[in-house]
């Protein structure tokens, strides 16, 4: 295992890919891998690209890969598509739009199925980003699943969140939804070749004025991703935000808070694992019977399980 991690750290693509698979499959090696890689992480700029289905996230990412690669960056991409709730399988198709970078040594693209996660990411997305970070990528783009509440989850793991909107998709109403304005660091109104761009841009700016309390004022870009219009300016904003984070207290706070969240999440996961194991041992039809007949209650049962877990550890 150490050999595989060593090769990954030296930038070997196959080893990096292997390690991500191991972590994604929750292999018993996960902890060892993450512990070894962790000291090497913390250098990359993690950029989230989120927005409704079909808004142009993959097309934008493709153009951004090009832009950052040209500036001499090693680029990593993690693109998440939904897994089927029925079969657990998935068709991961985001990278279709990025295939011209497939053979580029300085670009690594990885597709992930959401595997039951609802927040627009998969459970292992953050670990995958950390792996790419530790293995030398300078900038990592994470394309979320284009659904619902993905915006909130991406905020937890990305340094910079870009929210993609499209004119004429009812996104203007979405914008007003509480929370969204605070989440995005950069707004992108894509498909600017369509009617109604100016209105969406104006509405976003207006809404921003209402919530403005931060030292970073989110820029609003209009782009035509398909043609590459507006991408240079967008890339500049992404770099500016990175710069802002590195010199502001807000940026420092963000990174420190993320570490707190990380510990909390590991704790929750580990505790859940112990209690689940114990519960699976105790979950007999007889116990359910006695619950059903009200001879005992769920609180007492849960309490006893917790007690046993605590005593054993």
């Amino acid at each position, binding site marked *: 295992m150490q050999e595989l991690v060593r090769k990954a750290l030296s930038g070997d693509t*196959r080893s990096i890919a292997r390690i991500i698979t191991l972590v994604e499959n929750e292999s018993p090696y996960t902890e060892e891998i993450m512990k070894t890689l962790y000291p090497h992480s913390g250098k990359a700029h993690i950029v989230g690209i989120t927005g409704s289905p079909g808004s142009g996230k993959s097309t934008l990412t493709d153009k951004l890969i090009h832009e950052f690669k040209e500036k001499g960056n090693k680029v990593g991409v993690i693109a998440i598509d939904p897994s089927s709730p029925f079969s657990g399988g998935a068709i991961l198709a985001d990278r279709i739009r990025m295939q011209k970078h*497939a053979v580029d040594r300085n670009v690594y693209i990885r597709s992930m199925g959401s595997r039951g996660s609802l927040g627009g990411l998969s459970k292992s997305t953050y670990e995958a980003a950390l792996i790419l970070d530790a293995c030398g990528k300078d900038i990592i783009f994470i394309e979320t699943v284009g659904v619902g509440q993905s915006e909130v989850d991406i905020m937890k793991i990305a340094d910079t969140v870009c929210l993609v909107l499209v004119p004429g998709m009812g996104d203007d109403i979405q914008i007003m939804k509480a929370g969204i304005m605070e989440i995005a660091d950069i707004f992108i109104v894509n498909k600017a070749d369509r009617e109604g761009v100016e209105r969406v841009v104006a509405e976003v700016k207006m809404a921003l004025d209402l919530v403005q309390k931060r030292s970073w004022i989110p820029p609003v870009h209009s782009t035509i991703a398909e043609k590459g219009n507006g991408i240079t300016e967008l890339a500049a904003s992404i770099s500016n935000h990175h710069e802002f984070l590195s010199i502001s207290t807000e940026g420092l706070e963000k990174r420190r808070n993320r570490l707190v969240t990380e510990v909390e999440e590991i704790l929750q996961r580990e505790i859940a694992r112990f209690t689940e194991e114990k519960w699976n041992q105790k979950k007999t039809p007889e116990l359910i019977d006695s619950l059903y007949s009200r001879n005992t209650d769920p609180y007492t049962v849960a309490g006893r399980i917790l007690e046993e877990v605590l005593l054993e550890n």
Partner: protein
Amino acid sequence: MTHEKIRVIVAKPGLDGHDRGAKVIARALRDAGMEVIYTGLRQTPEQIVDTAIQEDADAIGISILSGAHHFYFSRIIELLKEHEALDIIVFGGGVIPDDDVPALLAMGAGAIFGPGTTTTTCVDWLKSKVHEKRTLEMA
């Protein structure tokens, strides 16, 4: 380990712009619980192999209608060899004459599925092939 999802690249090399067959097999593999990385049309062997490596795929499925199957299979297998990645299973379908199949298998293709093959046959074959490969890797 039930967690270990099978990951397959489904690619359509060559210049003809027809990927209905590729999409049908992609959906069948997904419905069998696999993760299918769909790369779209007109992929070069280099793109297909680099994609398989970045995605840590167990297998590459290619759909060829153009008649250039000999070239694509030999090139893909050659590139896999260069990358020391011959453990990645290569299989194909499309319109490949029966007479050409033995040569492709000799080259290292895992299986060639003719036009009449049901998706179930293909799915079952791939499942057992990946299982075989993983057992071998564990040893």
